[in-house]
């Protein structure tokens, strides 16, 4: 593949998904796009990239972007963000949301394990919080991921990553060699295609936002833009969960970390009321 082709791919990926393709990513491109090249009838990845550059085929651009974005996820990934939700976020919000509705947005839900984990967790906590109703919106940029998330079908390998066996028995049924999550849980989540680079106002007001392991793929300016849009959507007493290796520090002051709660952020009310922030 030529440098010109790689540069074009990098530009396209940044524009379409925010993904920053670092230098020396030949191996990543080759391994992610070889299956796409095969499927789409190209002789090689180089041929695919050349076509991408000269033809500007919308469908091809979508499948290539899809394949280049990382969709790694599993049930109850990192555990801590779910423990914190149960021990701190849920008790706090259940006191202030009089009608019991708590709106949660999984901003990059990939194949659905994160929203389903939250739904299962809520099911377990039902006795403690009988009035609470989680309204979960799960979005992703990838059609392929959303389709899988909506089907609720997981491989044996996937249901064994992070999911306690008792929860699996309770919430899944075996369908041939796959496991399908219960219709009740599937119907409790709204899945929607959302690109975080777009205007996010249509997402609507949220009480909790999970945006884990997404910002690491963006450049500073994009991270800032996404976080600031999220701050406008989040209720003043809402919560933002980022990935374990992510932070808002040095990016924006619209959020501040919660003391002693790794990965958990709240809105910085002082910064919120400073209109000059918008000019920065």
């Amino acid at each position: 593949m030529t440098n010109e082709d790689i540069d074009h791919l990098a530009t396209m990926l940044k524009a379409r998904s925010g993904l920053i393709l670092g230098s020396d990513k030949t191996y990543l491109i080759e391994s992610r796009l070889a299956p796409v090249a095969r499927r789409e009838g190209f002789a090689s990845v180089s041929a695919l990239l050349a076509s991408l550059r000269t033809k500007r085929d919308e469908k091809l651009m979508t499948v290539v972007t899809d394949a280049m974005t990382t969709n790694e996820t599993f049930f109850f990934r990192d555990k801590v963000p779910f423990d914190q939700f149960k021990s701190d976020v849920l008790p706090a919000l259940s006191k202030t949301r009089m009608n019991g509705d708590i709106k949660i947005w999984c901003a990059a839900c990939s194949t659905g394990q994160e929203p389903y984990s939250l739904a299962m967790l809520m099911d377990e906590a039902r006795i403690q919080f009988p009035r609470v109703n989680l309204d979960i919106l799960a979005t992703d940029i990838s059609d392929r991921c959303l389709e899988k998330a909506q089907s609720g079908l997981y491989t044996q390998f996937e249901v064994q990553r992070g999911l306690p066996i008792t929860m699996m028995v309770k919430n899944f049924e075996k369908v041939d060699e796959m496991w399908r999550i219960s219709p009740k849980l599937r119907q409790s989540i709204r899945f929607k295609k959302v690109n975080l680079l777009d205007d996010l106002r249509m997402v609507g007001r949220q009480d909790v936002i999970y945006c884990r392991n997404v910002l690491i793929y963006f450049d500073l300016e994009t991270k800032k833009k996404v976080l600031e849009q999220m701050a406008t959507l989040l209720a003043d007493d809402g919560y933002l969960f980022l990935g374990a290796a992510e932070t808002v520090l040095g990016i924006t002051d619209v959020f501040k970390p919660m003391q002693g709660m790794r990965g958990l952020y709240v809105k910085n009310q002082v910064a919120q009321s400073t209109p000059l922030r918008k000019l920065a």
Partner: protein
Amino acid sequence: MKTCLVVDDSRVIRKVARRILENLQFEVIEANDGLEALNSCKEKMPSAILLDWNMPVMDGITFLRQLRKEDGGKAPVVVFCTTENDLAHITEALTEGASEYIMKPFDGEILEAKFSEVGLI
């Protein structure tokens, strides 16, 4: 150091499990079937048992029922590790006192996650 008894009639599986468990700082003991495992437990109860279902002489579920009747036999944390992957088998294992259930094929990541789930690591 915690001990884990690996019960499986496949030498290859025992070897794979041993390598993973030793990396997780377990002392590993092996048994080829349920009866061997029961004798080993009567001598000294391990902290954990990784247990296959289908084995000659005595199968995993029979071993588990016998184990729970022994003196101190309620203590070991039992994790099934078997090709039986239907809800009926899983439910039966949990009813008889298994804490977790691994469906073969498995890898180090799954074993570690399951052991962590039940507080062994």
